[in-house]
């Protein structure tokens, strides 16, 4: 081979393949690949597109569930919620592009996931974003935060898709490699799920949307499938540019197309552009495609076949329609002002044949490209760091006021937590997102989960329900509101704690699933299924690979016990910079179902005098907590354990209580523990209920090692992050009923105190540990993030 005479730059390395993979390509083709073919293989066999490292492990995840119609393999998961409401949802990452060019990286991330949803014939109705950044005292981090949030806003707001929730965390490990995971949820419009299949030899293939340019070439292979080094800035040209207006037109055009009788298959052009869409559509259908790239509308002259096939220009769709109906399809796109052109035909030989006019520039088996990338069982090794970080010497950690503790009293420690960007109010983020458009968002951002009602604007049934629910004049009687609202609804939450997964990957995997499910349960919804985004460092490092495996094992275990299937998702590897890996960060996007949004539950207290209770036990667990990080500057110790049977019982209890209308509020204890949960329920309260009086030394589980006799130390009771706990408020007349439900589920339920207005007063065994005006604490909590971002 003549190219081997230049060993310094092996041809396969230019496209991100290994020598072994290159040889496989040669075997498949029976010859050496052309320049274009090699580029196509480089992309499709990249980690980002082929999941070659992850797929053997992803099989562990349970994929079937009662309401789930379509699991992994298609563009997104599908769940049937009855009465013709079919929901489609998926999460995806756009980490590396966002770390290089935050606005465009995040915006195109939103655009990509929207396309995954409407390509299935579903109208996108909500987005959620799970974001991770470095510490906010870093100028560049603040630039990244501002750019990413503005990019998400710019795309979501313009396309009219509400961004209803998500999460944002800050930790040093994400300083140079931020995480931008976007989940989109859609509602099927045309009554059928559209598949990304190129069925029917002879059928025309149409490319619709934006023109093809030179942007994003090698986005998937070189940008997404490698770690960052000092040359990361040079990758900026591999980031695409977003055009949300064209996306909006594409959404409308494709959804109209989905209603026609001539649409055969639809697939978006995302990572790996035309190469990926064409080979996947053909491979899924067992067909081939013959496309002529001279017919591809270009943004600029002089593009080579290689560039056309590898371009990741945004807002493009590949469409297969019935033979003879191409004119109808093109007229439909034209109506929406979207350029569309026939670029080829479906064939029956299984070959993706790319021509430029008469000249064949690539001729490869579609299946080999799309679905026969090598699968690797990469070596794994338990990381050495685990033995070190698990050690947590609580003896050496004084309580607030003790020497070596940064806070002189409990109030100081509490304030420190409330002002931490990881706990502080995230309003600065979500007020930049239109979270109300489409008028379905019935629980706005800030609660445990966002809740949307499901409606169809033009459905006579919607009309009847709305007339019943909203047929009162402004200021009319509110008492019958709950009874009259009979809309079905969905609850959505994204969760994942990188610190926990770093300290114990298995537990981190379990916890991400458990918390996401708990959050939708706290909204009164039944968990239906989840999509996951698995963010890890370089899998070629056996220790990273071990983390990955353990996280998946943990997720799989939690999914099995809680009965929640995984319907798909995304794996993002190579999240490291200059050899410094991110924490393993699984993010779970949970879909919950409510058969009556009138029964939704929110986190804020409702009425002074209501009884406040804690469901679940508190153990002495400070490992991996925000408190430990803030007072000791360490991510250390065993993360809070998750007993899945207890978790399951807790969720069943909360769900039953919610459906019975027993819960005035429900709020998961997460970062910052019980004290922060009580404070947040006070901050999110309706007027006149913004406070609480609570005795925290309840439901305590003894500490192992002391014969179970010693109660947890007070900082662990207040700020520890023991799982499977929910703070509930309940009308005093219904507490006995609530206790009965808890007993039946075997859930420890204890009374903490009462909702009161204006004051947060916590006692420990009768001693007041904290007494502050809610208003003061709330101001601190609300100001913290904007102030940190202004710094």
């Amino acid at each position, binding site marked *: 081979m003549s190219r081997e005479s230049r060993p310094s730059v092996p041809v396969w390395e230019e496209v991100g393949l290994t020598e072994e993979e290159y040889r496989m390509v040669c075997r498949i083709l029976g010859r050496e690949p052309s320049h274009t073919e090699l580029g196509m293989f480089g992309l499709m066999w990249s980690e980002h597109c082929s999941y070659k490292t992850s797929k053997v492990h992803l099989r562990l995840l349970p994929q079937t569930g009662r309401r789930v119609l379509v699991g992994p393999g298609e563009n997104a998961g599908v769940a049937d919620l009855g009465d013709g409401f079919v929901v489609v949802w998926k999460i995806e990452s756009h980490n590396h592009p966002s770390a290089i060019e935050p606005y465009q990286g995040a915006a195109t991330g939103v655009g990509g996931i929207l396309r995954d949803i409407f390509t299935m014939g579903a109208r996108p109705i909500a987005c959620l974003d799970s974001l991770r950044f470095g510490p906010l005292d870093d100028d560049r981090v603040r630039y990244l935060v501002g750019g990413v949030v503005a990019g998400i806003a710019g795309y979501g707001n*313009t396309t009219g898709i509400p961004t209803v929730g998500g999460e944002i965390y800050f930790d040093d490990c994400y300083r140079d490699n931020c995480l931008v995971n976007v989940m989109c949820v859609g509602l099927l419009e045309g009554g059928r799920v559209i598949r990304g299949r190129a069925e029917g030899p002879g059928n025309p293939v149409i490319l619709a949307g934006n023109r093809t340019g030179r942007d994003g070439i090698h986005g998937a292979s070189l940008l997404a499938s490698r770690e960052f080094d000092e040359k990361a800035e040079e990758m900026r040209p591999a980031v695409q540019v977003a055009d949300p207006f064209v996306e909006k037109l594409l959404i409308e055009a494709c959804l109209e197309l989905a209603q026609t009788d001539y649409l055969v298959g639809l697939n978006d052009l995302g990572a790996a552009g035309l190469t990926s869409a064409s080979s996947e559509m053909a491979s899924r259908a067992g067909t081939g495609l013959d496309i002529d790239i001279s017919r591809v509308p270009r943004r600029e002259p002089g593009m080579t076949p290689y560039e056309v096939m590898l371009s990741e220009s945004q807002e493009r769709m590949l469409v297969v329609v019935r033979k003879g109906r191409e004119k109808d399809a093109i007229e439909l796109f034209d109506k929406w002002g979207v350029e569309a052109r026939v670029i080829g035909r479906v064939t029956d030989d299984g070959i993706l044949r790319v021509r430029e006019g008469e000249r064949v520039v690539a001729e490869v088996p579609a299946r080999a490209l799309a679905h026969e990338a090598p699968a690797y069982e990469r070596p794994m090794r338990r990381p050495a760091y685990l033995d070190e970080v698990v050690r947590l010497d609580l003896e050496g950690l004084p309580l607030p006021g003790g020497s070596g503790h940064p806070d002189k009293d409990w109030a100081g420690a509490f304030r420190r937590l409330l002002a931490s960007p990881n706990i502080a109010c995230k309003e600065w983020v979500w007020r930049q997102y239109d979270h109300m458009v489409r*008028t379905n968002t*019935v629980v706005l951002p800030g609660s445990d989960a966002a809740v949307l009602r499901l409606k169809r604007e*033009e459905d006579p049934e919607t009309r009847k329900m709305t007339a019943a629910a909203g047929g009162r004049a402004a200021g009319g009687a509110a008492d019958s509101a709950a009874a009259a609202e009979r809309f079905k609804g969905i609850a959505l939450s994204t969760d994942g704690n990188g610190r926990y997964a770093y300290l114990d990957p298995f537990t981190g995997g379990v916890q991400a699933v458990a918390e996401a499910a708990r959050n939708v349960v706290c909204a009164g919804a039944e968990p239906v299924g989840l999509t996951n985004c698995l963010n890890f460092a370089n899998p070629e490092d056996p220790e990273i690979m071990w983390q990955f495996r353990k996280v998946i094992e943990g997720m799989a275990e939690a999914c099995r016990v809680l009965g929640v299937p995984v319907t798909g998702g995304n794996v993002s590897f190579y999240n490291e910079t200059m050899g410094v890996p991110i924490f393993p960060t699984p993010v779970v996007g949970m879909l919950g179902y409510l058969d009556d949004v009138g029964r939704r539950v929110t986190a804020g207290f409702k009425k002074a005098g209501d009884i406040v209770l804690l469901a679940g036990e508190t153990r002495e667990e400070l490992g991996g907590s925000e408190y430990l990080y803030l007072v000791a500057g360490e991510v250390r110790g065993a993360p809070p354990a998750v007993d899945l049977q207890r978790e399951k019982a807790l969720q069943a209890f909360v769900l039953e209580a919610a459906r019975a209308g027993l819960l005035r509020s429900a709020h998961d204890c997460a970062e910052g523990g019980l004290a922060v949960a009580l404070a947040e329920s006070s901050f999110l309260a309706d007027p006149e209920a913004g406070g609480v009086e609570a005795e925290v030394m309840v439901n305590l589980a003894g500490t192992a090692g002391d014969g179970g006799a010693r109660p947890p130390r007070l900082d662990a009771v207040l700020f520890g992050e023991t799982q499977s706990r929910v703070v509930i408020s309940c009308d005093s007349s219904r507490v006995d009923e609530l206790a009965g439900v808890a007993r039946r589920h075997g859930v420890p339920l204890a009374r903490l105190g009462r909702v009161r207005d204006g004051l947060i007063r916590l006692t420990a065994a009768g001693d007041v540990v904290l007494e502050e005006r809610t208003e003061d604490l709330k101001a601190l909590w609300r100001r913290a993030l904007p102030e940190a971002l202004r710094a």
Partner: protein
Amino acid sequence: MLAAGGAWKVRFSALTGRAGPCYHPVMGGLEDGTRALARTTGGGRRPRPVRFAVVVFPGSNCDADCYHAVGNVLGQPVEYVWHGTTDLSDFDCVILPGGFSYGDYLRTGAIARFSPVMEEVARFAGRGGLVIGICNGFQILLEAGLLPGAMLRNDSLQFRCLYTNVRVETTRTPFTGLCRRGQVLRIPIAHAEGNYTAPPDVLEELEQSGRVVFRYVDERGEPTPEANPNGSVRSIAGIVNEAGNVLGLMPHPERCCEEMLGSTDGRLIFESIVAHVTSRSVARPVVKGGSAR
């Protein structure tokens, strides 16, 4: 490029024209809505339906919300109208909805004003028809010269989506007839360019003639700087034209017409429109803005 007009058969067949599935009060499920209306208008007999049009520009994204609020919540007949339409004579009220018409890449509303429908909107308004431009619709009305003034970017330089309090400054418009003067309505905003501005003489004229309809205020009804979400001059949230039949406002009344959404104050605006139209015997001239206050 974007096709303008022509025979359209879009997602909503109503867009093709008058024959589409538009809801009429005689159809099921409407009684509750009209009953509320009948109560507010004080009439015992069923009032005549008020025909609403929701204009769809490429990039409109609150069109479905307006359709839902007017059609499903209020129970009035409503149709989507494509921006290529040149005849609005069948309607009583035309809604220019929020969104990002043509992407708003140039200046908000700057392209949409050239849509064929906008010439007809001007004629429709000239004939005394009611026009309400919400958010992007307000921006388009400004660009089209149907309302005075212009929009700057929010003083925060960021998009803002939040609930605001707006005070009703005059009830002598077809859009606020059912409100009380000084009433504080809770209505959300969602925009990046809602920082209204106009030359001092125009502002003075607006104030003097009672054409400032809504102002951002705090819970107590005071127009404080903190309660102003975008830096708008004199905390202006909505204005009408001289004849009083064209309203532009940044807040989204269609987002708060159902209790589950957190407020029903938006209904007062739509119900005022309905009450105004139904109380007109034939084609009574609209309220002259100049006589307000």
